[in-house]
């Protein structure tokens, strides 16, 4: 399992959180309970199985919603 911290551009609406959270949770290989979208720091934290899904795919799912990703950091758990 890998732990990812994804920095997004500033989030402005609290309802964005729910959108991003649901989208990331819906991905195969992402641990559902680990998904945390942080409104004020505009970060997404999650653990995922790098065998099943790549960090790029996680990023893509967020970008598709219209939230640009600035950078992500992945570390082993």
């Amino acid at each position, binding site marked *: 399992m890998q732990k990812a*911290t994804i920095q997004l551009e*500033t989030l*402005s*609406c*609290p*309802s964005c959180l*729910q*959108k991003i959270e*649901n*989208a990331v949770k*819906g991905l195969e290989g992402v641990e559902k309970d680990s998904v*945390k979208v*942080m*409104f*004020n*720091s505009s*970060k997404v934290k999650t653990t995922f199985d790098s065998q099943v899904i790549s960090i790029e795919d996680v990023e893509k799912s967020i*970008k598709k*919603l*219209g939230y640009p990703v600035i950078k992500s*950091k992945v570390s082993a758990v």
Partner: protein
Amino acid sequence: MQHFILGKKNQITLISAILITIGFFAHFSLSNAFIFNWALIIASILGVTPIAIQAYQALKVKVVSIDVLVTIAVIGAVIIQNYEESAIVTFLFLFGAYLEQRTLNKTRSAIKGLTEMAPDSALKQMENGEFESVDVDDVDEGDILLVKTGGKIPVDGTVMTGEGHINEASITGESVPVGKIKGSKVFAGTILENGTIQIQADRVGEDTTFGRIIELVEEAQDSKSAAERFIDRFSKYYTPAVLVLGIIVWLFTSDIELAITVLVLGCPGALVIGVPVSNVSGIGNGARNGVLLKGSEVINDFSKVDTIFFDKTGTLTVGNPEVAEIEVYAKEQEETFNYLASVERESDHPLAMAILNYIGETTFYTVEKTEVEKGGGITARVNGHRVVIGNESLMEKENIHLTNKVKADIIKFEQNGNSLVLTAIDGELKVLMGIRDQVRPGVKHDLQQLKKLGVKNLVVLSGDNQGTVDVVARELKLTEAHGNMLPEQKSSYIEKVQKVGKVVAFVGDGVNDSPSLALADIGIAMGSGTDVAIETSDVVLMNSDFSHLPHALGLTKSTARNMKQNIVIAVGVVLVLLASLLFSEWMNMSIGMLVHEASILAVILNGMRLLRYRLKGSRNKEM
């Protein structure tokens, strides 16, 4: 395409404002209905596009967002040919979102200022021995880094070569530069004011002390109190409920205009953002002023505290005790001191330090069989003699006879506020020492402020003898003082007080007091920033600065109040809007949207007041 449109939201807002102006100009000055209608139609379609995209994305992940409500309302308005309403509502919604983002950035500025103290790049030694600038994320533990004058330390590390002075204000709040030489520890986010050093990275990224502080503050700002979680759940169902209500109104009255007006008026805007905005500003203010508050639950609990327990040594007092009074009963004083110093040399007890400082240079003997008596003292064997060092109860346990003169001295010393250290050699009492600690400067003033803020009981709990504790309590005008307490007695006392319904905070240095810190409703650690205490407590006073405490309490009270105000504003606005729809003639979509956006700005601006919060008469200077 979707990205393009969303990225151009600000331009779209501007264009739709211009179109609306043109439309109304044509309407009132030229009485030209054609231009009026088409300008507004274009403004509506242009404006609703980004909102509709957001609504579609939300629905795809099964969220009924505000965008959905607004999109339906605007489309409905266009269908019934009310172009005026559709254009103005979309414009207000977009413009409101823009202002919201601008003001929100302000509330986050406090934390941003903090995170920007960490450098992005570092000079790393490459395989060829040269230093090259690399991204700070590419620095690993063990790497050698070069830091030049004026540069920021990128990681936690150890100085390998060179020396200099470092400003550690970002970690400790203390802005007087600290000298660093080979072997000294340096911390990420601090600034090298002069000199050039090479350091080896010990901890990098989020593992550094600075990284941990940032992460903690970030998590705290996003943590949710019970009330907030309730609002979250509430708004999850609230928005769809408004949609259903709109449909019901439409079915029963066949009045599309009324139905879509309900959709707009029902938007939950200010409710969703009101509480987080207070939270983020309050925590941001704290972080800038040397107070780490771990989340909104902490803010709520802390604001209700009526009883504060203090550890004595290192909290109320400087924690640097000195031998203040001494009575020698032995003839061979120097020899006794040698034994005493030899044993104390092996202890890291604060009292031992005081004794060694007092005795100074002396001959040290080899010490055998040292045993530490918890809460009593030390016994050891030196040169074949049995040495007993400790308090009165240890002497009794060791059957050491105390003469009436000694007993009188003990009483006198205790009354003067000393901690006692008795030394006996081979069963005979040789020396009585009284050791005293200075009260921290300014603490008295801070405690008075706490009282003014509504704290009823200020209590000191200490392992020291009752006399010492009483002297401190008298000097500081505390309400209660309990001495001779072991750590577990402290925590059981706290439990007892909690059972009578008091809301309790405990202030300690976090090492030996961890049970009490954990048990109290609010555990407040006096941390120098490098302590593990940061992790175990609810509130951390950076740089062990006591003067931050009244500020912290005042701030949490203001923040808790601010949250309540915002909830009242948000709920009040929705109620007033819906009521006026039922009972008045003048309510329509545009006014509803205007009031909504105004209420969102009102709660954000109200929250922002917390950024500037300062406690009146505080000793605390802003960093």
